[in-house]
C-alpha cells in the first residue's frame, strides 16, 4: 500500500514534471532566458514569477497535442515557446478541456490560452483574442468519398463537427447561405472530441466534416487514408480570424506577447515555424487584437 502510494506520487510528479519541464527549453529558438529581449515590456507579476501559465486543449494535432511521453507538442506549442523565450520567462502548459478554457482565462487561472478560437463578437464580450490564424475550410470525407461530396456544393450534406468549434459556427453560415439560395438545408451532428468525431465519420454516421487544412492533413496521415481531405477549399463560407485568448483588458500581457511576436517576425523565426508546418498561407502577420491592428 505504501509502495503504491509512493508509486502514484512518483507518477504524479513525473507528469507534472513533463508538463512543466518543457518550459525550461524554448525549443530551437535561442533567446535570453533570464530577461526579455529589448523592446518587450513584461507585466510585473509575470516578471516576478518568471513563468507564464498557458492553457490549451491538448488534443488537436498538429497544432497542439501530447506526444507519446505526455509532453505538449505541435507547431502552436513551438510558437508559444518562442514567444516565452523572447519574453525571457519560462512557460508552463496546462491541458484544459475546451469548454473550461474561457472561464479559466477570465478568472486568471491561466495567463493566456492557446487554441485557434474564432474571434467572434460574442467571445469578444468576455475575452480578448490575439488573432494570428485564418485557416480556410477544407472538407474531410471517407477515403472513397462514397457520398460524392463536392466542396463547392455543400448544401444538403450531413456534417459532423466539434461542439463550440469554428466549424460548428461555419456550419450556421453555410446553412444560412443554402436557405438564401433555396438549396436543400445541410444537417449537422455535434461531437465532444476529434477522436469520436472521426470514428463516426469512418462509420458513415455523417457525410463530411469541415476541417482546417493542417488538422485535415494530419487526420489523413493518421488514418492512413481512411479519411481524406478533398482537393479544393470551401469558398462560400467566410472565415473568422482566430487566435490566442487573454482575459478581457489584460493589456499588459497582450502588449508583451504582441511585442515578442513582433520581434520573432522581424528575425524570421515566426514565419519559419509557420512555413515548416504549411501554415504560412493561413497566418495573420502581424497578429491583430480583436480583429483590429494592434497599437503597441
Amino acid at each position: 500500500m505504501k509502495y503504491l502510494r509512493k508509486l502514484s506520487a512518483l507518477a504524479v510528479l513525473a507528469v507534472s514534471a513533463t508538463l512543466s519541464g518543457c518550459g525550461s527549453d524554448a525549443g530551437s529558438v535561442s533567446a535570453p532566458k533570464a530577461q526579455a529581449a529589448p523592446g518587450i515590456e513584461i507585466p510585473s507579476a509575470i516578471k516576478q514569477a518568471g513563468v507564464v501559465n498557458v492553457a490549451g486543449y491538448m488534443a488537436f494535432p498538429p497544432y497542439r497535442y501530447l506526444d507519446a511521453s505526455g509532453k505538449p507538442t505541435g507547431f502552436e506549442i513551438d510558437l508559444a515557446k518562442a514567444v516565452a523565450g523572447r519574453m525571457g520567462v519560462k512557460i508552463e502548459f496546462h491541458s484544459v478541456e475546451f469548454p473550461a478554457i474561457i472561464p479559466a482565462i477570465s478568472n486568471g487561472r491561466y495567463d493566456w490560452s492557446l487554441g485557434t478560437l474564432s474571434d467572434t463578437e460574442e467571445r469578444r464580450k468576455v475575452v480578448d483574442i490575439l488573432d494570428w490564424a485564418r485557416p480556410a475550410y477544407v472538407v474531410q470525407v471517407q477515403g472513397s468519398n462514397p457520398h460524392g461530396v463536392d466542396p463547392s456544393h455543400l448544401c444538403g450534406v450531413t456534417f459532423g463537427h466539434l461542439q463550440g468549434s469554428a466549424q460548428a459556427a461555419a456550419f450556421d453560415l453555410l446553412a444560412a447561405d443554402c436557405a438564401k439560395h433555396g438549396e436543400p438545408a445541410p444537417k449537422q451532428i455535434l461531437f465532444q472530441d476529434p477522436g469520436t468525431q472521426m470514428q463516426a465519420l469512418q462509420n458513415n454516421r455523417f457525410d463530411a466534416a469541415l476541417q482546417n487544412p493542417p488538422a485535415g492533413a494530419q487526420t489523413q496521415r493518421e488514418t492512413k487514408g481512411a479519411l481524406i481531405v478533398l482537393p479544393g477549399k470551401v469558398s462560400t463560407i467566410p472565415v473568422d480570424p482566430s487566435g490566442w485568448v487573454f482575459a478581457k483588458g489584460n493589456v499588459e500581457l497582450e502588449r508583451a506577447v504582441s511585442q515578442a511576436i513582433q520581434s520573432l517576425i522581424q528575425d524570421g523565426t515566426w514565419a519559419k515555424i509557420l512555413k515548416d508546418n504549411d501554415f504560412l498561407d493561413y497566418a495573420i502577420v502581424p497578429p491583430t487584437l480583436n480583429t483590429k491592428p494592434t497599437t503597441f
Partner: protein
Amino acid sequence: MSSERSTDLAPQMKPGNIAALPETRRVVALRHPGRWASAVVVIGFLLWFANVLVTTEAFEWDVVSSYLFNPLVLNGVLQTLEMTAIVLVIGMVAGTIIAIMRLSPNVVLHSVAHFYQWFFRGTPPLVQLIFWFNLASVFPRFELTLFDHTFFSISTNTIMTPFVSALLGLGLPLSAYYSEIVRAGILAVDEGQWEAASAYALTPFQTLRHIVLPQAMRVIIPPTGNEAIGTLKFTSLATIVSFTELLHTVSTIYNTNFQTIPLLIVAALWYLFLTSVLSIGQYFLEQRFAKGSKRAVKQPLISKFWSNVLGQVKTA
C-alpha cells in the same frame, strides 16, 4: 426369448405400472434435459462470441495490447485509483456524519443535514465540478482579516487545483447519497437495541459506536460496493476540470492517433480490472461484518478464484 427378457427387465419399469414396483427400486438420478440443452446453447453462444472478439479486426487487439501498459495509461489508472480512494473516504465520512445529523432530534442539525442532502443530490456532479474549478470567478481570493490585519490571503486558483476541484465535485455529491445509505442502515437496526443499550447506561454516542453502527454495516456494505464502483467510473467526469484520470489520458491519445475503439477498449479493460478488485474487497468486508449472522455471504466467483489462488500459495 423376447418374452423372457421382458419379464427380466420387470414390467414395473413400464410407465403407468407404478403399483407393481417391487420393494428394491433402481435409483436413477433425476434427469435435466432442459438444463443440458440450455447450457449447450449458452456455451455455443459464448464460443461464437469469443470467436467474434478474436477475429474481428476492427478491435485491433495489437493496438490494444501495445497501449495497455503505456506509461501514460498507467498514470491515468493510478490517478483514477487515487481519486476514487480519496473521494470514497470523503463521501463515507461526511455521509455518515450527515446521516447521524439527520437522525438527530436537534432541529438545527436535522434541517441543515436535510438541506445539504437536498442541495448536493439535486445538482448534477458535472455542474458542481465546473463550479468548484471556477470558484475564482466568484471569490478571487481567500483571506482572513481581523482588526485590519490580514493573516493570510491566497488566490482561490492556488487552492482549487484540478485535483481539489475534482475531490469536492465528486466527494460532496457522494456524501449526500451515502448519507441516505447510512441512514437506511441505522433505521434497519431494531429500536429495541437502543432501548437495551440505554438500559445498560450506554450514552447515545456509545450506543451508536458499539451497538448500532456495527449492525447497520451489514445493510450498508452492499450499496457501498455499488457506490465504490460508481465512484470509480464517475471519476471520468473530472476530465472536464483537466484532471488526468484514465479516460482523459486515453482520449488524449485517441484524439491524436484516431485509434478510438482500441483505446476505449484499453480503458474498459482497466475499469473492469479495478471493478473486480473492488468487488473482492467488498466480499471480505461483508464477511467481516457478517460475523454472528446466520445468513452466510455467498462468495462471488472471482474472489473464490482469488482465495483459491491465495490458499494454494499459502499451502505451497
